[in-house]
Protein backbone atom coordinates (compact mmCIF):
# COMPACT_ATOMS: atom_id res chain seq x y z
CA UNK A 1 0.00 0.00 0.00
CA UNK A 2 1.48 3.27 -1.07
CA UNK A 3 1.68 6.27 1.14
CA UNK A 4 -0.78 8.04 -1.08
CA UNK A 5 -3.76 5.77 -0.45
CA UNK A 6 -2.96 4.82 3.16
CA UNK A 7 -5.92 5.84 5.29
CA UNK A 8 -4.81 8.01 8.17
CA UNK A 9 -7.14 6.46 10.78
CA UNK A 10 -4.44 3.80 11.22
CA UNK A 11 -2.43 6.40 13.08
CA UNK A 12 -5.13 6.87 15.67
CA UNK A 13 -6.29 3.30 16.32
CA UNK A 14 -3.02 1.48 16.71
CA UNK A 15 -0.99 1.51 19.86
CA UNK A 16 2.44 2.86 18.95
CA UNK A 17 4.88 0.01 18.39
CA UNK A 18 2.44 -2.87 18.59
CA UNK A 19 -0.94 -4.23 17.62
CA UNK A 20 -4.00 -4.35 19.80
CA UNK A 21 -4.73 -7.76 21.28
CA UNK A 22 -7.96 -9.18 22.60
CA UNK A 23 -8.57 -12.56 24.22
CA UNK A 24 -11.56 -14.66 23.25
CA UNK A 25 -13.78 -16.45 25.69
CA UNK A 26 -15.13 -19.80 24.59
CA UNK A 27 -17.54 -22.10 26.35
CA UNK A 28 -16.42 -25.69 25.93
CA UNK A 29 -19.37 -27.61 27.22
CA UNK A 30 -21.37 -28.35 29.35
CA UNK A 31 -22.74 -30.58 26.60
CA UNK A 32 -20.05 -30.80 24.00
CA UNK A 33 -19.77 -33.94 21.89
CA UNK A 34 -15.99 -34.04 22.21
CA UNK A 35 -15.84 -34.01 25.99
CA UNK A 36 -17.68 -37.33 26.45
CA UNK A 37 -19.66 -36.22 29.45
CA UNK A 38 -20.98 -33.12 31.08
CA UNK A 39 -17.96 -30.92 31.70
CA UNK A 40 -17.96 -27.18 31.31
CA UNK A 41 -14.71 -25.35 30.66
CA UNK A 42 -14.74 -21.63 30.00
CA UNK A 43 -11.59 -21.13 27.99
CA UNK A 44 -9.73 -17.90 27.50
CA UNK A 45 -8.11 -18.11 24.10
CA UNK A 46 -5.38 -16.14 22.43
CA UNK A 47 -6.04 -17.10 18.85
CA UNK A 48 -6.09 -20.88 19.22
CA UNK A 49 -3.79 -21.02 22.24
CA UNK A 50 -5.38 -21.56 25.63
CA UNK A 51 -4.47 -18.97 28.23
CA UNK A 52 -6.77 -19.91 31.06
CA UNK A 53 -9.58 -22.25 32.01
CA UNK A 54 -12.43 -21.94 34.44
CA UNK A 55 -13.97 -25.29 35.24
CA UNK A 56 -17.52 -25.91 36.35
CA UNK A 57 -18.47 -29.34 37.59
CA UNK A 58 -21.38 -30.86 39.45
CA UNK A 59 -23.94 -31.14 36.65
CA UNK A 60 -24.79 -34.71 37.62
CA UNK A 61 -24.15 -34.42 41.33
CA UNK A 62 -26.39 -36.87 43.20
CA UNK A 63 -25.20 -36.40 46.80
CA UNK A 64 -24.00 -39.96 47.25
CA UNK A 65 -22.30 -39.19 50.55
CA UNK A 66 -25.55 -37.87 51.99
CA UNK A 67 -27.59 -40.73 50.53
CA UNK A 68 -25.17 -43.22 52.06
CA UNK A 69 -25.87 -41.84 55.51
CA UNK A 70 -29.43 -43.08 55.23
CA UNK A 71 -28.84 -46.45 53.64
CA UNK A 72 -27.96 -49.74 55.29
CA UNK A 73 -24.48 -51.00 54.34
CA UNK A 74 -26.02 -53.58 52.07
CA UNK A 75 -27.74 -50.97 49.93
CA UNK A 76 -24.73 -48.72 49.39
CA UNK A 77 -23.24 -51.07 46.80
CA UNK A 78 -25.77 -49.77 44.26
CA UNK A 79 -24.53 -46.23 44.84
CA UNK A 80 -20.95 -47.25 44.12
CA UNK A 81 -22.04 -48.64 40.74
CA UNK A 82 -22.75 -45.14 39.63
CA UNK A 83 -19.37 -43.66 40.48
CA UNK A 84 -17.13 -44.87 37.67
CA UNK A 85 -19.79 -46.60 35.61
CA UNK A 86 -17.24 -47.85 33.08
CA UNK A 87 -15.84 -50.25 35.69
CA UNK A 88 -18.60 -50.77 38.24
CA UNK A 89 -17.37 -54.15 39.59
CA UNK A 90 -14.19 -52.53 40.95
CA UNK A 91 -16.27 -50.00 42.86
CA UNK A 92 -18.59 -52.72 44.15
CA UNK A 93 -15.72 -54.89 45.34
CA UNK A 94 -14.01 -51.90 46.90
CA UNK A 95 -17.09 -51.15 48.95
CA UNK A 96 -17.59 -54.78 50.00
CA UNK A 97 -13.95 -54.98 51.07
CA UNK A 98 -14.29 -51.78 53.10
CA UNK A 99 -17.14 -53.25 55.13
CA UNK A 100 -15.29 -56.54 55.41
CA UNK A 101 -12.26 -54.72 56.75
CA UNK A 102 -14.41 -52.91 59.29
CA UNK A 103 -16.11 -56.11 60.45
CA UNK A 104 -12.97 -58.25 60.24
CA UNK A 105 -14.40 -60.69 57.72
CA UNK A 106 -11.83 -62.95 56.05
CA UNK A 107 -12.63 -64.41 52.68
CA UNK A 108 -11.65 -67.82 51.34
CA UNK A 109 -8.95 -67.70 48.68
CA UNK A 110 -11.37 -68.88 46.05
CA UNK A 111 -13.61 -65.86 46.55
CA UNK A 112 -10.65 -63.50 46.50
CA UNK A 113 -9.49 -64.88 43.16
CA UNK A 114 -12.98 -64.71 41.74
CA UNK A 115 -13.06 -61.06 42.74
CA UNK A 116 -9.69 -60.51 41.10
CA UNK A 117 -11.09 -61.93 37.86
CA UNK A 118 -14.12 -59.64 38.02
CA UNK A 119 -12.01 -56.60 38.82
CA UNK A 120 -9.49 -57.22 36.07
CA UNK A 121 -12.27 -57.72 33.53
CA UNK A 122 -13.66 -54.38 34.64
CA UNK A 123 -10.26 -52.77 34.25
CA UNK A 124 -9.99 -54.08 30.71
CA UNK A 125 -13.49 -52.80 29.89
CA UNK A 126 -12.64 -49.37 31.25
CA UNK A 127 -9.32 -49.13 29.42
CA UNK A 128 -10.95 -50.31 26.20
CA UNK A 129 -13.38 -47.39 26.45
CA UNK A 130 -10.71 -44.84 27.26
CA UNK A 131 -8.12 -45.93 24.72
CA UNK A 132 -10.56 -46.35 21.87
CA UNK A 133 -11.98 -42.91 22.60
CA UNK A 134 -8.50 -41.40 22.43
CA UNK A 135 -8.39 -42.94 18.96
CA UNK A 136 -11.77 -41.41 18.09
CA UNK A 137 -10.66 -37.97 19.23
CA UNK A 138 -7.59 -38.15 17.02
CA UNK A 139 -9.85 -39.04 14.10
CA UNK A 140 -9.29 -42.81 14.04
CA UNK A 141 -12.76 -44.27 14.41
CA UNK A 142 -11.88 -47.71 13.11
CA UNK A 143 -10.18 -49.04 16.25
CA UNK A 144 -13.11 -47.97 18.34
CA UNK A 145 -15.66 -49.85 16.25
CA UNK A 146 -13.71 -53.11 16.49
CA UNK A 147 -12.41 -53.10 20.08
CA UNK A 148 -15.82 -52.18 21.48
CA UNK A 149 -16.92 -55.70 20.67
CA UNK A 150 -14.60 -56.88 23.44
CA UNK A 151 -16.40 -54.68 25.93
CA UNK A 152 -19.63 -56.38 24.91
CA UNK A 153 -18.03 -59.74 25.66
CA UNK A 154 -17.00 -58.53 29.12
CA UNK A 155 -20.54 -57.30 29.70
CA UNK A 156 -21.83 -60.74 28.74
CA UNK A 157 -19.60 -62.15 31.49
CA UNK A 158 -20.96 -59.61 33.98
CA UNK A 159 -24.45 -60.61 32.96
CA UNK A 160 -23.63 -64.23 33.64
CA UNK A 161 -22.13 -63.36 37.06
CA UNK A 162 -24.72 -60.92 38.40
CA UNK A 163 -27.44 -60.41 35.81
CA UNK A 164 -26.65 -56.80 34.98
CA UNK A 165 -24.40 -55.19 32.43
CA UNK A 166 -23.61 -51.58 33.30
CA UNK A 167 -24.58 -50.86 36.89
CA UNK A 168 -23.66 -54.28 38.08
CA UNK A 169 -24.13 -54.39 41.86
CA UNK A 170 -21.86 -57.42 41.67
CA UNK A 171 -20.97 -59.45 44.72
CA UNK A 172 -22.16 -59.03 48.27
CA UNK A 173 -20.53 -58.16 51.56
CA UNK A 174 -18.74 -61.41 52.38
CA UNK A 175 -18.42 -62.79 48.87
CA UNK A 176 -20.65 -63.27 45.87
CA UNK A 177 -24.40 -63.71 45.61
CA UNK A 178 -23.95 -67.01 43.80
CA UNK A 179 -21.21 -69.10 42.34
CA UNK A 180 -20.02 -68.41 38.81
CA UNK A 181 -22.02 -70.63 36.50
CA UNK A 182 -20.27 -73.16 34.21
CA UNK A 183 -21.23 -70.94 31.28
CA UNK A 184 -19.59 -68.01 33.01
CA UNK A 185 -16.28 -69.89 33.40
CA UNK A 186 -16.56 -70.87 29.77
CA UNK A 187 -17.05 -67.23 28.72
CA UNK A 188 -14.12 -66.06 30.84
CA UNK A 189 -11.82 -68.68 29.37
CA UNK A 190 -12.99 -67.87 25.85
CA UNK A 191 -12.46 -64.17 26.47
CA UNK A 192 -8.95 -64.62 27.82
CA UNK A 193 -8.13 -66.73 24.80
CA UNK A 194 -9.34 -64.36 22.09
CA UNK A 195 -8.78 -60.94 23.63
CA UNK A 196 -4.99 -60.66 23.02
CA UNK A 197 -5.49 -61.05 19.28
CA UNK A 198 -8.21 -58.40 19.26
CA UNK A 199 -6.02 -56.05 21.25
CA UNK A 200 -3.15 -56.70 18.87
CA UNK A 201 -5.40 -55.71 16.00
CA UNK A 202 -6.21 -52.48 17.82
CA UNK A 203 -2.52 -51.87 18.56
CA UNK A 204 -1.62 -52.38 14.92
CA UNK A 205 -3.94 -49.53 14.02
CA UNK A 206 -2.60 -47.05 16.54
CA UNK A 207 0.55 -47.82 18.51
CA UNK A 208 3.16 -47.27 15.79
CA UNK A 209 0.86 -45.23 13.58
CA UNK A 210 2.83 -42.15 12.55
CA UNK A 211 -0.21 -39.87 12.49
CA UNK A 212 -1.38 -41.06 15.91
CA UNK A 213 2.10 -40.67 17.38
CA UNK A 214 2.55 -37.18 15.97
CA UNK A 215 -0.82 -36.23 17.32
CA UNK A 216 -0.38 -37.59 20.86
CA UNK A 217 3.32 -37.43 21.75
CA UNK A 218 4.01 -34.28 23.79
CA UNK A 219 0.31 -33.51 23.88
CA UNK A 220 -0.83 -32.66 27.41
CA UNK A 221 2.37 -33.76 29.12
CA UNK A 222 2.68 -33.28 32.84
CA UNK A 223 5.77 -33.65 35.05
CA UNK A 224 5.80 -36.25 37.82
CA UNK A 225 6.31 -33.83 40.70
CA UNK A 226 3.28 -31.76 39.69
CA UNK A 227 1.26 -34.93 39.22
CA UNK A 228 2.08 -36.04 42.76
CA UNK A 229 1.30 -32.60 44.15
CA UNK A 230 -2.06 -32.72 42.41
CA UNK A 231 -2.84 -36.16 43.82
CA UNK A 232 -2.74 -38.09 40.55
CA UNK A 233 -3.08 -41.84 40.86
CA UNK A 234 -3.59 -44.73 38.52
CA UNK A 235 -2.54 -44.77 34.85
CA UNK A 236 -2.23 -40.97 34.75
CA UNK A 237 0.39 -41.00 37.49
CA UNK A 238 2.18 -44.02 36.08
CA UNK A 239 2.38 -42.34 32.68
CA UNK A 240 4.45 -39.64 34.40
CA UNK A 241 6.91 -42.29 35.55
CA UNK A 242 5.84 -42.99 39.14
CA UNK A 243 5.35 -46.71 39.71
CA UNK A 244 2.58 -46.42 42.28
CA UNK A 245 -0.13 -49.03 42.06
CA UNK A 246 -2.38 -49.87 45.00
CA UNK A 247 -2.46 -53.52 43.95
CA UNK A 248 1.25 -53.73 44.76
CA UNK A 249 1.76 -51.00 47.34
CA UNK A 250 -1.16 -51.99 49.54
CA UNK A 251 -2.35 -55.39 48.31
CA UNK A 252 -5.96 -56.44 48.78
CA UNK A 253 -8.04 -59.41 47.71
CA UNK A 254 -5.01 -61.65 47.23
CA UNK A 255 -3.16 -59.48 44.69
CA UNK A 256 0.06 -60.29 46.53
CA UNK A 257 -0.15 -63.82 45.08
CA UNK A 258 0.03 -62.61 41.50
CA UNK A 259 3.00 -61.85 39.34
CA UNK A 260 2.51 -58.83 37.12
CA UNK A 261 4.28 -55.76 35.82
CA UNK A 262 3.32 -52.16 36.48
CA UNK A 263 3.81 -50.33 33.19
CA UNK A 264 5.15 -46.80 33.55
CA UNK A 265 5.62 -44.02 31.03
CA UNK A 266 8.13 -41.21 30.86
CA UNK A 267 6.67 -37.89 29.76
CA UNK A 268 3.16 -38.14 31.13
CA UNK A 269 1.72 -37.17 27.77
CA UNK A 270 -1.31 -38.53 25.96
CA UNK A 271 0.71 -41.20 24.19
CA UNK A 272 2.19 -42.44 27.49
CA UNK A 273 -1.22 -42.59 29.09
CA UNK A 274 -2.48 -44.53 26.11
CA UNK A 275 0.45 -46.94 26.24
CA UNK A 276 0.23 -47.47 30.01
CA UNK A 277 -3.42 -48.46 29.64
CA UNK A 278 -2.60 -50.62 26.67
CA UNK A 279 0.04 -52.55 28.60
CA UNK A 280 -2.19 -52.78 31.65
CA UNK A 281 -4.80 -54.60 29.61
CA UNK A 282 -2.17 -57.19 28.73
CA UNK A 283 -1.16 -57.49 32.38
CA UNK A 284 -4.81 -57.87 33.34
CA UNK A 285 -5.18 -60.77 30.95
CA UNK A 286 -2.10 -62.35 32.52
CA UNK A 287 -3.59 -61.85 36.00
CA UNK A 288 -6.87 -63.45 34.96
CA UNK A 289 -4.95 -66.41 33.50
CA UNK A 290 -3.00 -66.78 36.75
CA UNK A 291 -6.21 -66.57 38.74
CA UNK A 292 -7.79 -69.30 36.63
CA UNK A 293 -4.73 -71.51 37.20
CA UNK A 294 -4.77 -70.84 40.92
CA UNK A 295 -8.47 -71.64 41.10
CA UNK A 296 -7.83 -74.94 39.32
CA UNK A 297 -5.17 -75.83 41.88
CA UNK A 298 -7.27 -74.90 44.92
CA UNK A 299 -8.90 -77.81 46.68
CA UNK A 300 -11.84 -75.55 47.49
CA UNK A 301 -14.20 -75.73 44.50
CA UNK A 302 -17.42 -74.62 46.12
CA UNK A 303 -17.22 -71.64 48.41
CA UNK A 304 -18.35 -68.35 46.99
CA UNK A 305 -18.89 -66.55 50.28
CA UNK A 306 -17.12 -66.26 53.59
CA UNK A 307 -18.68 -67.99 56.57
CA UNK A 308 -20.58 -64.95 57.83
CA UNK A 309 -24.28 -65.68 58.21
CA UNK A 310 -24.79 -62.16 59.52
CA UNK A 311 -24.08 -60.76 56.05
CA UNK A 312 -24.66 -63.51 53.51
CA UNK A 313 -28.22 -64.01 52.35
CA UNK A 314 -29.58 -67.53 52.85
CA UNK A 315 -30.32 -69.56 49.70
CA UNK A 316 -33.56 -68.59 47.96
CA UNK A 317 -35.15 -72.06 48.25
CA UNK A 318 -34.81 -71.80 52.03
CA UNK A 319 -36.11 -68.22 52.07
CA UNK A 320 -39.26 -69.30 50.25
CA UNK A 321 -39.89 -72.37 52.40
CA UNK A 322 -38.58 -71.73 55.90
CA UNK A 323 -39.66 -69.02 58.29
CA UNK A 324 -36.22 -68.64 59.92
CA UNK A 325 -34.46 -68.13 56.61
CA UNK A 326 -37.06 -65.58 55.55
CA UNK A 327 -36.62 -63.61 58.76
CA UNK A 328 -32.86 -63.79 58.39
CA UNK A 329 -33.06 -62.60 54.80
CA UNK A 330 -35.20 -59.67 55.84
CA UNK A 331 -32.89 -58.74 58.69
CA UNK A 332 -29.87 -58.65 56.40
CA UNK A 333 -31.59 -56.54 53.77
CA UNK A 334 -32.84 -54.10 56.39
CA UNK A 335 -29.33 -53.77 57.81
CA UNK A 336 -29.70 -55.54 61.13
CA UNK A 337 -26.22 -57.05 61.11
CA UNK A 338 -24.09 -55.87 64.02
CA UNK A 339 -21.43 -53.42 62.85
CA UNK A 340 -18.53 -52.52 65.12
CA UNK A 341 -17.95 -48.91 66.08
CA UNK A 342 -14.89 -47.63 64.30
CA UNK A 343 -13.52 -46.13 61.15
CA UNK A 344 -11.67 -47.54 58.25
CA UNK A 345 -10.05 -46.41 55.02
CA UNK A 346 -9.82 -48.91 52.24
CA UNK A 347 -8.59 -48.26 48.75
CA UNK A 348 -8.55 -50.27 45.57
CA UNK A 349 -6.80 -49.63 42.30
CA UNK A 350 -9.72 -48.40 40.26
CA UNK A 351 -9.42 -48.21 36.50
CA UNK A 352 -8.47 -44.54 36.68
CA UNK A 353 -6.74 -44.33 40.04
CA UNK A 354 -6.91 -44.97 43.72
CA UNK A 355 -10.56 -45.33 44.67
CA UNK A 356 -10.81 -44.95 48.43
CA UNK A 357 -13.65 -45.39 50.88
CA UNK A 358 -13.41 -43.65 54.22
CA UNK A 359 -16.13 -45.18 56.37
CA UNK A 360 -17.01 -44.02 59.87
CA UNK A 361 -19.37 -46.29 61.74
CA UNK A 362 -21.08 -45.42 65.00
CA UNK A 363 -22.47 -48.92 65.36
CA UNK A 364 -25.71 -47.93 63.66
CA UNK A 365 -27.49 -49.42 60.71
CA UNK A 366 -26.07 -46.87 58.33
CA UNK A 367 -22.64 -45.25 58.12
CA UNK A 368 -22.19 -42.13 60.24
CA UNK A 369 -20.08 -40.73 57.42
CA UNK A 370 -18.88 -42.16 54.17
CA UNK A 371 -16.41 -40.31 52.02
CA UNK A 372 -15.42 -41.50 48.58
CA UNK A 373 -11.94 -40.67 47.40
CA UNK A 374 -12.77 -40.35 43.73
CA UNK A 375 -9.62 -40.28 41.60
CA UNK A 376 -11.27 -38.26 38.79
CA UNK A 377 -12.37 -35.52 41.12
CA UNK A 378 -8.87 -35.15 42.44
CA UNK A 379 -6.89 -35.15 39.23
CA UNK A 380 -9.34 -33.23 37.04
CA UNK A 381 -8.44 -30.04 38.92
CA UNK A 382 -5.01 -30.17 37.28
CA UNK A 383 -6.60 -29.85 33.84
CA UNK A 384 -6.17 -26.05 33.51
CA UNK A 385 -2.48 -26.38 34.28
CA UNK A 386 -2.10 -29.25 31.84
CA UNK A 387 -3.65 -27.43 28.90
CA UNK A 388 -2.27 -23.95 29.49
CA UNK A 389 -0.40 -22.76 26.43
CA UNK A 390 -1.58 -25.62 24.23
CA UNK A 391 -3.98 -25.66 21.29
CA UNK A 392 -7.69 -26.16 21.71
CA UNK A 393 -7.64 -29.45 19.82
CA UNK A 394 -4.92 -30.76 22.16
CA UNK A 395 -7.08 -29.85 25.15
CA UNK A 396 -9.84 -32.13 23.88
CA UNK A 397 -7.36 -34.95 23.47
CA UNK A 398 -5.82 -34.35 26.89
CA UNK A 399 -9.21 -34.59 28.53
CA UNK A 400 -10.15 -37.84 26.86
CA UNK A 401 -6.77 -39.35 27.72
CA UNK A 402 -7.22 -38.44 31.40
CA UNK A 403 -10.24 -40.75 31.56
CA UNK A 404 -12.46 -38.35 33.47
CA UNK A 405 -15.78 -40.07 34.15
CA UNK A 406 -18.60 -37.66 34.94
CA UNK A 407 -20.32 -40.02 37.36
CA UNK A 408 -17.26 -40.28 39.52
CA UNK A 409 -16.31 -36.63 39.19
CA UNK A 410 -19.64 -35.37 40.45
CA UNK A 411 -20.50 -38.25 42.80
Amino acid at each position, binding site marked *: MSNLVKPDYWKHDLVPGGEQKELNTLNLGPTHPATHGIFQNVLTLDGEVIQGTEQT*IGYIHRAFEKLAERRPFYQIATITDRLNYCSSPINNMGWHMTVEKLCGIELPKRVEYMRVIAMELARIADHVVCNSVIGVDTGALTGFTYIYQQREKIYDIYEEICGARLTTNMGRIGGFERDFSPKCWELIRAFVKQFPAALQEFDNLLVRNRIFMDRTINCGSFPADRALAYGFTGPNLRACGVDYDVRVADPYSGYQDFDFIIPVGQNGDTYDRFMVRDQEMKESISIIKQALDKLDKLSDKKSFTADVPAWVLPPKEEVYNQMEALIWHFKIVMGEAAVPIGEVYHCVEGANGELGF*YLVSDGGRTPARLHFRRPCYIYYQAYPEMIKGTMLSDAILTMSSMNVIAGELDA
Partner: protein
Amino acid sequence: MPAPAFATRTDRDQLVIDSLTSSFGESVVSCQRITDMLVITVKKPVIHDVLKHCKEQLDFNFMTTMCGMHDADRDMLGLVFHLQSMRQGHRIRLKTETPMKDPVFPTFTDLWPTANWMEREAFDFFGLHFTGHPNLKRILNMEDFPAFPLRKDYPLEDQTREDKDDSYFGR
Protein backbone atom coordinates in the same frame (compact mmCIF):
# COMPACT_ATOMS: atom_id res chain seq x y z
CA MET B 1 7.44 -62.66 49.93
CA PRO B 2 5.05 -59.84 49.20
CA ALA B 3 5.81 -56.45 50.65
CA PRO B 4 3.87 -55.63 53.80
CA ALA B 5 0.75 -53.60 53.26
CA PHE B 6 0.99 -49.84 53.78
CA ALA B 7 -1.03 -49.58 56.88
CA THR B 8 0.64 -52.46 58.66
CA ARG B 9 3.89 -50.49 58.90
CA THR B 10 3.65 -50.33 62.69
CA ASP B 11 7.39 -49.65 62.93
CA ARG B 12 6.87 -46.25 61.31
CA ASP B 13 3.92 -45.44 63.58
CA GLN B 14 6.07 -44.91 66.65
CA LEU B 15 8.49 -42.70 64.73
CA VAL B 16 5.64 -40.46 63.61
CA ILE B 17 4.15 -40.29 67.10
CA ASP B 18 7.51 -39.42 68.68
CA SER B 19 8.30 -36.77 66.11
CA LEU B 20 4.91 -35.08 66.41
CA THR B 21 4.73 -35.16 70.20
CA SER B 22 8.25 -33.78 70.54
CA SER B 23 7.53 -30.95 68.09
CA PHE B 24 3.99 -30.07 69.09
CA GLY B 25 3.76 -31.28 72.67
CA GLU B 26 0.32 -30.89 74.12
CA SER B 27 -1.25 -29.84 70.85
CA VAL B 28 -1.29 -33.53 69.91
CA VAL B 29 -4.48 -34.70 71.56
CA SER B 30 -4.33 -38.41 70.87
CA CYS B 31 -2.49 -41.04 68.86
CA GLN B 32 -4.04 -44.45 68.40
CA ARG B 33 -4.36 -47.26 65.89
CA ILE B 34 -7.94 -47.63 64.72
CA THR B 35 -8.61 -50.81 62.70
CA ASP B 36 -5.52 -50.61 60.53
CA MET B 37 -4.25 -47.06 60.51
CA LEU B 38 -2.52 -44.67 62.87
CA VAL B 39 -4.97 -41.89 63.75
CA ILE B 40 -3.61 -38.67 65.20
CA THR B 41 -5.87 -35.96 66.55
CA VAL B 42 -4.36 -32.51 66.89
CA LYS B 43 -5.66 -29.17 68.07
CA LYS B 44 -6.88 -26.75 65.46
CA PRO B 45 -4.26 -23.96 65.76
CA VAL B 46 -1.37 -26.28 64.85
CA ILE B 47 -3.00 -28.27 62.05
CA HIS B 48 -1.24 -26.43 59.24
CA ASP B 49 2.13 -26.76 60.97
CA VAL B 50 1.54 -30.44 61.66
CA LEU B 51 0.80 -31.09 58.00
CA LYS B 52 3.86 -29.10 56.98
CA HIS B 53 5.96 -31.08 59.45
CA CYS B 54 4.56 -34.35 58.11
CA LYS B 55 5.33 -33.30 54.56
CA GLU B 56 8.82 -31.93 55.12
CA GLN B 57 10.21 -33.96 58.02
CA LEU B 58 8.32 -37.23 57.94
CA ASP B 59 8.31 -37.88 54.19
CA PHE B 60 4.55 -37.84 53.71
CA ASN B 61 4.69 -36.65 50.14
CA PHE B 62 1.13 -37.38 49.08
CA MET B 63 -2.21 -36.11 50.32
CA THR B 64 -4.58 -38.93 49.60
CA THR B 65 -7.76 -37.22 50.63
CA MET B 66 -9.25 -34.59 52.88
CA CYS B 67 -12.85 -34.41 53.95
CA GLY B 68 -15.11 -32.60 56.37
CA MET B 69 -16.98 -34.11 59.28
CA HIS B 70 -19.89 -33.00 61.41
CA ASP B 71 -20.40 -34.18 64.96
CA ALA B 72 -23.95 -33.11 65.74
CA ASP B 73 -23.87 -34.29 69.36
CA ARG B 74 -20.89 -32.15 70.26
CA ASP B 75 -21.70 -29.37 67.81
CA MET B 76 -18.29 -29.61 66.20
CA LEU B 77 -17.07 -29.53 62.61
CA GLY B 78 -13.99 -31.52 61.75
CA LEU B 79 -11.44 -32.11 59.08
CA VAL B 80 -9.94 -35.51 58.31
CA PHE B 81 -6.76 -35.90 56.29
CA HIS B 82 -5.28 -39.07 54.89
CA LEU B 83 -1.59 -38.73 54.21
CA GLN B 84 0.60 -41.23 52.55
CA SER B 85 4.30 -41.71 52.13
CA MET B 86 4.98 -43.53 48.90
CA ARG B 87 8.67 -44.05 49.66
CA GLN B 88 8.11 -45.44 53.15
CA GLY B 89 4.91 -47.26 52.32
CA HIS B 90 2.98 -45.74 55.19
CA ARG B 91 -0.39 -44.10 55.67
CA ILE B 92 -1.73 -42.01 58.53
CA ARG B 93 -4.96 -40.24 59.28
CA LEU B 94 -4.92 -36.78 60.85
CA LYS B 95 -7.93 -35.22 62.48
CA THR B 96 -8.80 -31.87 63.87
CA GLU B 97 -11.99 -30.14 64.83
CA THR B 98 -13.45 -26.74 65.44
CA PRO B 99 -16.64 -25.42 67.04
CA MET B 100 -19.55 -24.70 64.71
CA LYS B 101 -19.31 -21.00 65.53
CA ASP B 102 -15.76 -20.72 64.20
CA PRO B 103 -15.48 -22.85 61.05
CA VAL B 104 -12.27 -21.29 59.75
CA PHE B 105 -9.04 -23.06 58.85
CA PRO B 106 -5.95 -21.87 57.05
CA THR B 107 -5.72 -23.10 53.48
CA PHE B 108 -3.64 -26.17 52.71
CA THR B 109 -3.24 -25.40 49.02
CA ASP B 110 0.25 -24.04 49.71
CA LEU B 111 1.34 -27.52 50.78
CA TRP B 112 -0.53 -29.58 48.19
CA PRO B 113 -2.36 -27.98 45.26
CA THR B 114 -4.70 -30.96 45.32
CA ALA B 115 -6.25 -29.53 48.49
CA ASN B 116 -7.90 -26.89 46.31
CA TRP B 117 -11.00 -28.81 45.30
CA MET B 118 -11.08 -30.80 48.52
CA GLU B 119 -11.37 -27.53 50.42
CA ARG B 120 -14.03 -26.31 48.05
CA GLU B 121 -15.92 -29.54 48.68
CA ALA B 122 -15.60 -29.10 52.44
CA PHE B 123 -16.83 -25.53 52.07
CA ASP B 124 -19.69 -26.61 49.85
CA PHE B 125 -20.94 -29.41 52.06
CA PHE B 126 -19.96 -28.39 55.59
CA GLY B 127 -19.54 -24.63 55.44
CA LEU B 128 -15.89 -24.74 56.43
CA HIS B 129 -13.88 -21.69 55.41
CA PHE B 130 -10.26 -21.72 54.38
CA THR B 131 -8.45 -18.42 54.61
CA GLY B 132 -6.06 -17.85 51.75
CA HIS B 133 -7.81 -20.23 49.37
CA PRO B 134 -7.47 -18.94 45.79
CA ASN B 135 -11.05 -19.56 44.72
CA LEU B 136 -13.30 -20.61 47.58
CA LYS B 137 -16.77 -21.14 46.18
CA ARG B 138 -19.24 -23.98 45.90
CA ILE B 139 -18.17 -26.77 43.63
CA LEU B 140 -20.77 -29.52 43.29
CA ASN B 141 -23.93 -27.75 44.43
CA MET B 142 -25.36 -24.73 42.69
CA GLU B 143 -23.91 -21.43 43.79
CA ASP B 144 -27.02 -20.07 45.49
CA PHE B 145 -27.74 -23.27 47.39
CA PRO B 146 -29.12 -22.20 50.76
CA ALA B 147 -27.56 -24.81 53.08
CA PHE B 148 -24.58 -27.01 53.81
CA PRO B 149 -26.07 -30.38 52.96
CA LEU B 150 -23.70 -32.84 54.64
CA ARG B 151 -24.28 -31.33 58.06
CA LYS B 152 -26.38 -33.71 60.10
CA ASP B 153 -29.16 -31.19 60.62
CA TYR B 154 -29.84 -30.96 56.88
CA PRO B 155 -32.77 -33.26 56.09
CA LEU B 156 -32.32 -35.80 53.34
CA GLU B 157 -35.96 -35.88 52.34
CA ASP B 158 -38.84 -33.50 52.36
CA GLN B 159 -39.70 -33.38 56.05
CA THR B 160 -43.33 -32.52 55.44
CA ARG B 161 -44.04 -36.03 54.20
CA GLU B 162 -46.32 -37.95 56.52
CA ASP B 163 -46.51 -41.31 54.77
CA LYS B 164 -43.14 -42.54 56.03
CA ASP B 165 -41.98 -43.45 59.50
CA ASP B 166 -38.27 -42.76 59.72
CA SER B 167 -37.90 -44.19 63.20
CA TYR B 168 -37.26 -47.55 61.56
CA PHE B 169 -34.11 -46.22 59.97
CA GLY B 170 -32.00 -45.17 62.91
CA ARG B 171 -31.01 -41.55 62.43
